[in-house]
C-alpha cells in the first residue's frame, strides 16, 4: 500500500502482515517503506512489545505478539465505524 498514511495505519499494516514471521525486507516492501522509516517503525513496535524479533539462522524475523491483536482489533473497529455512522456520500 502506498500514498499518504498516518503512523497508526502503518503500525496496523505491519502488525497484520507480521502475524506470520516476516523478514525486514519483506515488511518494508509490503508496507512501502524505506529502510530508515522501516527501522523506526519496527523499533517502536518491538520496544512496545507488539512485535518480537525471532532469530532464523543468521537472520532476524519479526512476529506480532498477542498484544498486537488488541491494537489490530481496535483499529479495525474504529475504521469500520467511519462507515457505520453518518456522514455518507450519495448521488
Amino acid at each position: 500500500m502506498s500514498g499518504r498514511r498516518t503512523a497508526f495505519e502503518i503500525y496496523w499494516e505491519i502488525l497484520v502482515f507480521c502475524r506470520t514471521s516476516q523478514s525486514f525486507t519483506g515488511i518494508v516492501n509490503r508496507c512501502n517503506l524505506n529502510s530508515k522509516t522501516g527501522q523506526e517503525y519496527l523499533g517502536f513496535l518491538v520496544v512496545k512489545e507488539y512485535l518480537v524479533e525471532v532469530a532464523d539462522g543468521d537472520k532476524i524475523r519479526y512476529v506480532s505478539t498477542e498484544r498486537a491483536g488488541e491494537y489490530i482489533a481496535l483499529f479495525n473497529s474504529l475504521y469500520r465505524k467511519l462507515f457505520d455512522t453518518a456522514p455518507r456520500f450519495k448521488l
Partner: protein
Amino acid sequence: MHESACLRFRNEIRRFYLITVANIVFAGLVMALGISVSVQQAVLIYELSSIALYTTHSPVILCIALVAALAGLVWILSSIRIFEGIKAIKDDIDWKGGEVPDEAFTRLIVRMLSHYRDNRTIIRTMILVCTLGGICLFALGIVGSLEYLSISAGGIVFTLNTYLVVPLMLLTLGVAVVSLASSFYFSRFAKVWDERLGEIEVFEVLLKETLELYRE
C-alpha cells in the same frame, strides 16, 4: 453492522467511480470543442479576406476557446489520476465479492483514505475546473450559435442561426449541467471524506493511548 458498513463503502466507491468516468467523458468534450473553435477562429484570423471575419471572428471567442481547451486538458489529467486510484480500489472490492473479511475491509478503507489524502488538492482544483469548463463551454455554445453579431455604441445586434442553435444549445446545456453536477458531487465527496479525516484524528488519540499503554 459490518455488512452495512461494507455495503456503504462499496456503494460510495461505485458512485464516485461513475462521477469520475463522467468527468473524463465531458472533459474530453470540453477540450475537443475548445480546440475545434480555436482552430476555426485561428483560420478566420489568418484568412483576412474571409467574409466570416465580419461576422463571427473575435479574439474573445479565441480566448474563451483556448481557456476551454486548457481547462479540458487539466480536467482530463486530474480526472485520470483520480480515476486510476478509484478503479483499483473498486476492482478489488468487486473481486472480493459480497463477503469482505474484516481486515481486508479495513485495508480497503486505509487505501481509500490514502488515495484521498494524496489527491485532496486535485479534487479541490477539479471542483473549480469543472465549473470553469462548464462556463467556457456555455459561452462557446452561445457565441457559436450566433450567425451575426455587432456591438456598437448604438447597441448590440445579433442574428441566431436556427440550424445551429438547437444542437449547440443542447450540447451546451448538457455539458454545463454535468459540469455543475460534477462540481457539486466532488464538493460533497470532499466534504464527507474531510469529516472522516476529522474523525480519524479523534481515533488517533485512542490509538495513541493504546500504544502507550504497554510502554514499560
